[in-house]
């Protein structure tokens, strides 16, 4: 590795602009004549709209327009859609109800948009939004998925009888699984709740819609993780504009964690309102709107049976999950509790029979979709809490039970579709136990007891599937899009390089790691490499960043394009030096003839390509190549996390005294950035396990956690410093051997922490988040 090449801890190129206040986020954009939008939102969880009267609002100071859902319907703007078709066990397609960008007949959750006001200032827009009179006829509401499935509950969409969207199953035949469970020496049964979360990227969502009447052209600046998908969907399904008339730009984006993958009503409304009112329209969510309307994450209720033979080998796993989808099916919602969840239920274990059943349910709550980890945290939490409980019931050490059941030969086909390509689970387990000084725990526990504290230790061995995904495979499973990635490498005439990528960076540091890849290939300084992303006018097409796919898929596309550039550059260099193409090597910023002292500087190769004065016969001028990369398989990062806690039994407060992460991410481009991803993921996982929960009032459907006053975000003093290490086995499936690291932290940490807390207090039933009140109640009940 060079100082700036693959594997180097290079400081980030993008940092200077963020550190000096020069980042450019959507809300920072200002265009001439720009006006501000404020939404009128439903205060009810479920109601019929009898009328919307904007006449008072229209006359208020600064107001340019008051627009409603009927007008939007009249203008032919389409429904929001879910882009992944899931079929129920009986073969019927999922039951998707209509989601209007502005509701005109029925509102289905608190925050559902009903009308929009455009005004000279945001304060004036809000003043007027309050004056829009909406006459509602309130209907009963239901917020919990399990309740929504029972008889006599409010019917949320006419399309989905009994609020059931689908009833889907995967894996081994039920009868076979049941038989294995019946024959087992021991069965561990649990009810597992995966709490509902609000993703909370620190930058709230925003959109700026600009309609150019002369060109009949639209531009949308928006906080998106995947601007090309946004354009595709807005164009093909929402009828906002044809793709060639719609430019979507996602500039600097302040975090996403999944919540900015989806296309929301507001960006569509801003574009449409810009045409309707004749002015550019900007909307910026406030945090309350974010809590109300950003897609939430998780919210599963599951029962699980894990069966063991007399030698403590797992013989079968049976899972039944109810997934709360909220009031509408968000863009990828259907895939999360199915192909992103149930396919990972084998974990790191060799389990001969797995059957999972998943029911997706409408409720009067915000839509639920992918949030950091999407499905894999749910699978890991269920599995790792269950195996830990099993170890306690069987009276064996949690490490031994896991070891006994580890998959040890690869490739390994699980009963739930996935074919694991490589891994060494033992290596991560050993490394983590050593780093955590597992052997010394008993002494530390005794010492803590002397101070009146209950100390506990817990582990979790996770696996996840990243690098989504082979297009044909996901297509056969119902995906509406392919999940390849594109790249274009443009070498300029002076040898500097631009890389255009369909991946999108919103904190991941692509401007640095992608440049490292290029620097590594040609031996040029990373400062001579620029990464271009996030603009549909610049980058032809791309699928965006989520599912830890930018390294494994996005960078693989760059590698393919670099391969092509290299071939051509070698031809040119060979021609210039009158050597054989096969003898040319490119390194340290020059092309050399191997075994001689003949060299041509890189910039001269580039210059020759563009002057075209002296190129090999028949060669086209220029040095620019594009590539699409479609992965052949998922990648399978895995690892072991160990958490140690001390609990104050008098208050129930948990202090994390140690957190160890040992991960296998395959090859690593920039360890500093990878560690940063793990830190952030762990913090979100700890947030889920200890602090965070979205609460709705079950009677009224009001959101009780609509601000940081009630939604507990992890802060610096809730967390320790983390001990992070890697035990890497290169991924055989892609040219760089990368697996992906963006979500592991959020996947592996919740069960490690909950296993530690339940170890400390001796209660296996505690649910997340383990708030002081709950832990105290559990300790208290045990006394």
């Amino acid at each position, binding site marked *: 590795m060079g100082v700036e090449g693959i594997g180097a801890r290079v400081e980030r190129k993008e940092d*200077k602009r963020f*550190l000096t206040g020069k980042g450019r986020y959507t809300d920072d954009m200002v265009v001439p004549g720009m006006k501000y939008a404020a939404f009128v939102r439903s205060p009810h969880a479920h109601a019929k709209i009898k009328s919307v009267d904007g006449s008072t609002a229209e006359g208020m100071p600064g107001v340019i327009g008051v627009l409603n859902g009927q007008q939007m319907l009249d203008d032919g703007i389409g429904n929001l859609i879910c882009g992944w078709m899931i079929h129920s066990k009986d073969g019927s397609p999922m039951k998707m109800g209509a989601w209007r960008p502005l509701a005109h007949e029925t509102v289905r959750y608190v925050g559902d948009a009903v009308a929009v006001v455009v005004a000279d*200032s945001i304060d004036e827009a809000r003043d007027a939004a309050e004056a829009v009179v909406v006459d509602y006829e309130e209907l009963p509401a239901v917020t919990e998925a399990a309740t929504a499935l029972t008889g006599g509950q409010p019917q949320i969409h006419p399309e989905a009888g009994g609020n059931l969207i689908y009833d889907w199953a995967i894996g081994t035949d039920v009868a076979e699984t049941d038989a294995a469970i019946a024959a087992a020496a021991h069965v561990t049964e649990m009810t597992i709740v995966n709490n509902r979360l609000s993703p909370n990227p620190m930058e*709230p969502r925003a959109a700026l819609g600009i309609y150019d009447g002369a060109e009949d052209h639209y531009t949308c600046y928006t906080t998106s993780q995947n601007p090309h998908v946004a354009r595709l969907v807005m164009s093909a399904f929402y009828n906002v504009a044809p793709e060639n008339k719609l430019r979507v730009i996602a500039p600097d*984006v302040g975090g996403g964690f999944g919540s900015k993958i989806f296309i929301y009503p507001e960006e569509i409304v801003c574009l449409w309102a810009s045409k309707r009112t004749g002015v550019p329209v900007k909307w*910026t969510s406030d*945090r309350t709107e974010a809590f109300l309307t950003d897609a939430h994450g998780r919210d599963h209720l599951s029962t699980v049976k894990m069966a063991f033979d007399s030698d403590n080998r797992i013989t079968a796993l049976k899972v039944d999950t109810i997934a709360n989808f909220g009031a509408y099916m968000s863009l990828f919602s259907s895939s999360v509790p199915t192909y992103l969840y149930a396919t990972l239920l084998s974990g790191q274990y060799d389990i001969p029979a797995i059957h999972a059943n998943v029911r997706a349910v409408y409720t009067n709550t915000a839509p639920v979709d992918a949030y950091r980890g999407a499905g894999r945290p749910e699978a890991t939490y269920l599995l790792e809490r269950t195996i830990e409980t099993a170890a306690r019931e069987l009276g064996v050490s949690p490490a031994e039970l896991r070891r006994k059941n580890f998959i040890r030969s690869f490739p390994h086909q699980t009963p739930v579709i996935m074919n694991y390509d490589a891994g060494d689970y033992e290596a991560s387990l050993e490394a983590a136990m050593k780093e955590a000084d597992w052997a010394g725990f008993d002494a530390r526990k005794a010492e803590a007891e002397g101070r009146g504290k209950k100390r506990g230790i817990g582990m979790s061995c996770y696996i996840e599937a990243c690098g989504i995904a082979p297009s044909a495979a996901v297509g056969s499973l119902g995906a509406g899009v392919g999940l390849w990635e594109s790249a274009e490498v443009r070498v300029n005439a002076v040898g500097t390089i631009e890389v255009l990528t369909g991946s999108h960076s919103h904190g991941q540091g692509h401007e640095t790691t992608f440049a490292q890849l290029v620097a590594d290939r040609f031996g040029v300084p990373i400062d001579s490499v620029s990464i271009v992303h996030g603009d549909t006018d610049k980058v032809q097409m791309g699928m965006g960043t989520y599912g830890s796919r930018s390294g494994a898929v996005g960078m693989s596309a760059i590698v393919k394009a670099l391969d092509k550039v290299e071939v051509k550059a070698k031809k040119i260099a060979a021609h210039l030096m009158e050597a054989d193409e096969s003898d040319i090597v490119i390194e340290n910023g020059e092309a050399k003839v191997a075994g001689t002292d003949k060299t041509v500087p890189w910039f001269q190769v580039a210059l020759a390509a563009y002057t075209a004065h002296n190129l090999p016969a028949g060669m086209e001028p220029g040095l620019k190549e594009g590539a699409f990369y479609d992965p052949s398989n998922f990648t399978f990062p895995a690892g072991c996390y160990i958490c140690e806690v001390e609990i104050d039994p008098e208050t129930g407060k948990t202090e994390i005294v140690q957190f160890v992460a040992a991960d296998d991410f395959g090859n690593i481009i920039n360890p500093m950035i990878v560690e940063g991803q793990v830190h952030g993921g762990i913090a979100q996982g700890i947030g889920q396990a200890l602090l965070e929960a979205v609460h709705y009032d079950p009677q009224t459907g009001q959101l009780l956690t609509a601000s*940081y006053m009630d939604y507990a975000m992890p*802060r610096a003093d809730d967390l320790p410093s983390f001990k992070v290490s890697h035990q890497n086995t290169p991924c055989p499936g892609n040219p760089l051997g990368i697996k992906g690291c963006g979500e592991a932290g959020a996947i592996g940490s919740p069960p490690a922490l909950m296993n530690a807390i339940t170890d400390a207090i001796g209660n296996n039933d505690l649910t997340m988040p383990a708030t002081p009140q709950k832990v105290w109640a559990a300790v208290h009940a045990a006394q």
Partner: protein
Amino acid sequence: MTKVTMTVNGRQVSGDVEERTLLVHFIRDRLGLTGTHVGCDTSQCGACVVHMDGKSIKSCSTLAVQAAGSSITTIEGLAQGGELHPVQAAFKANHGLQCGFCTPGMVMTAVDMINRYGGSLDEKTVRENLEGNICRCTGYHNIVKAILAAASDMSAGRQAAE
């Protein structure tokens, strides 16, 4: 509308504002200094932290008219002559930022903290003093590291100068 005058990053500025205008909006919309961010409505996230008369405050919770006559420093005013401030440099060296959204507030908070504690900062104190700043990306690990590194660099620099 009322006219407010204040010093921002060493320059005297004034403008007519509605009295309900928050300082953060005056800074962002009037002065075009968009480095100061808004991340919440309840004064808790700290994305908006600036210095008023040398002390960190939340510019989302102060009206522009309340700040009239004061001296404000924003993230744009920290680096001098193209050189990053030592705290900015430490955030870069220690990967103390990812998406960059919380970063201006974090950096302004860190400078204030180091002003108050100097080289005596330890990890616990840093974490406590970050109570008013939320970061969703970094898990705080590298932010804490960066602040501690900057504090020790700056106090070493100060001692060397004395």
